């Protein structure tokens, strides 16, 4: 799946190698690259995480501000997830507004967090119908070598679990004051996205940039720690059989548990 020219040689080689059950870098089909997760390293953000998955490198920043609620939910806070494809991350990425892939990335990560009800948004109201807390989750890609969804999902979870949310005081006149006190953000679930990719009849996880270019399709499944599915996204101009879909879900449940342990270990 690529928007640009892919070398025929590369495609042929990767397809041949994956068919034997291995990857170009020697990994097994269901093996992730090494994870490196750091949290709370940005002083001006309520929460932050730096994730390196192989050579893929992303920074996630969580900021909490104040703004207007949606009309139909006057007392609920608002969460917004945004992704930036910075031009340093890949030679083909140009400066400009987020391309379609970045928008999908943000929406898929957002959907997973929101569907899992990770944060009780009803507790974030300040002045009914006027002012509520806004939670911004910004996904910043610094080096692109495939599998951004899983890396950003883990980064968002790591940042949110270590977020120190400021306390707000609301006066009788409806004036809001941000105190110096902070409190660890309470999370109700720990959803994680796992993307399973397909080349020919082989299913594998954690694609590199090359594998991402060559793959036929992928299914991302976001699951929480109780084994519930929160979100699914299928991409790629190919079909998946029901059997393949079930396999993907099983793989996602297994891998999410492993990754979640890594993410929460740094809490």
């Amino acid at each position: 799946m690529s928007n640009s020219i892919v070398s025929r040689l590369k495609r042929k080689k990767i397809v041949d190698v994956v068919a034997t059950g291995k990857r170009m870098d020697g990994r097994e089909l269901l093996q992730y690259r090494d994870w490196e997760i750091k949290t709370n390293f940005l002083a001006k953000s309520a929460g932050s995480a730096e994730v390196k998955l192989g050579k893929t490198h992303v920074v996630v920043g969580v900021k909490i501000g104040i703004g207007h609620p949606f009309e139909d939910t006057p007392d609920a806070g608002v969460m917004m997830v945004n992704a930036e494809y910075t031009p340093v991350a890949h030679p083909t990425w140009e400066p400009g507004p987020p391309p379609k892939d970045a928008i999908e990335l943000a929406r898929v990560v957002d959907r997973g967090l929101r569907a899992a009800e990770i944060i009780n948004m009803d507790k974030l109201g300040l002045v009914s119908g006027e002012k509520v807390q806004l939670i911004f989750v910004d996904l910043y890609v610094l080096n692109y070598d495939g599998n951004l969804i899983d890396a950003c999902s883990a980064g968002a979870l790591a940042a949110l679990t270590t977020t120190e949310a400021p306390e707000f005081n609301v006066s009788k006149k409806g004036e809001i004051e941000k105190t110096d006190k902070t409190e660890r953000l309470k999370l109700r679930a720990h959803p994680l996205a796992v993307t399973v990719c397909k080349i020919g009849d082989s299913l594998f996880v954690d694609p590199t940039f090359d594998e991402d270019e060559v793959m036929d399709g992928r299914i991302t499944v976001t699951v929480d720690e109780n084994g519930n599915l929160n979100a699914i996204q299928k991409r790629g101009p190919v079909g998946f059989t029901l059997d393949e879909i079930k396999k993907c879900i099983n793989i996602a449940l297994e891998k999410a548990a492993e990754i979640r342990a890594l993410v929460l270990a740094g809490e």
Partner: protein
Amino acid sequence: MSAKFETRDIVVPGDLLYEGRIRTGDNTFRSEGNVYSNKVGLVNYSNDRVSVIALEGTYSPLVGDLVVGMVTDLELGQWVVDISTPTDAILTINDAVNKSYRTSFDMTTVLDVGDVVVAKIVDFDRRRTPILSIVGRDLGKVYEGFIMKITPSKIPRLIGKKGSMINMILRQTRCQITIGQNGRILINGRNREDEELVVKVIHKIEKEAHTSGLTNRVQEYLRTIKEDRN
């Protein structure tokens, strides 16, 4: 002594290498009568010149270079080939096909966008665009194998003095290895194990290119890995 460093010292752009007259070699420039480095690299003082062996760098194409590239566009009578140069290279039909052809000739029967080629740089046009040719032995479209990319400035190290390093690797891994001066290496082995070994060895050479005693260390490395295998 007018030399400001010792051979094999690491220097950076702007470092004063030599005060006074001396011939300027690679990656140096003369300014106000002195010689300075223009890159990060190892300075080398020889009898009559000072030069810097660059540790990083873009590929500087020269006529005669063997390069590995990918066709990225089809134009009238020529293909555009990406060989990691500041401007893309051109391959004309005349330099690709050895016999006569009709004007209705379908170029994609020879090369299409996305094809990988091994080519030679035969010329530069007046706008410094590299001109390629695939007419010749061991040149042309590549059908098998994969490409590994390393910094072009480390290619000499991979080849070694009179080919000593690359010949040793070829002997020990029995893979086909085509080294492009533009930092792209085409590898084709009989099995994945051998190919993975080549990749590991080349990574090691790239990382340690600035040190000495590398040939021996690589030989030892190859020996240990093959022993572990058996």
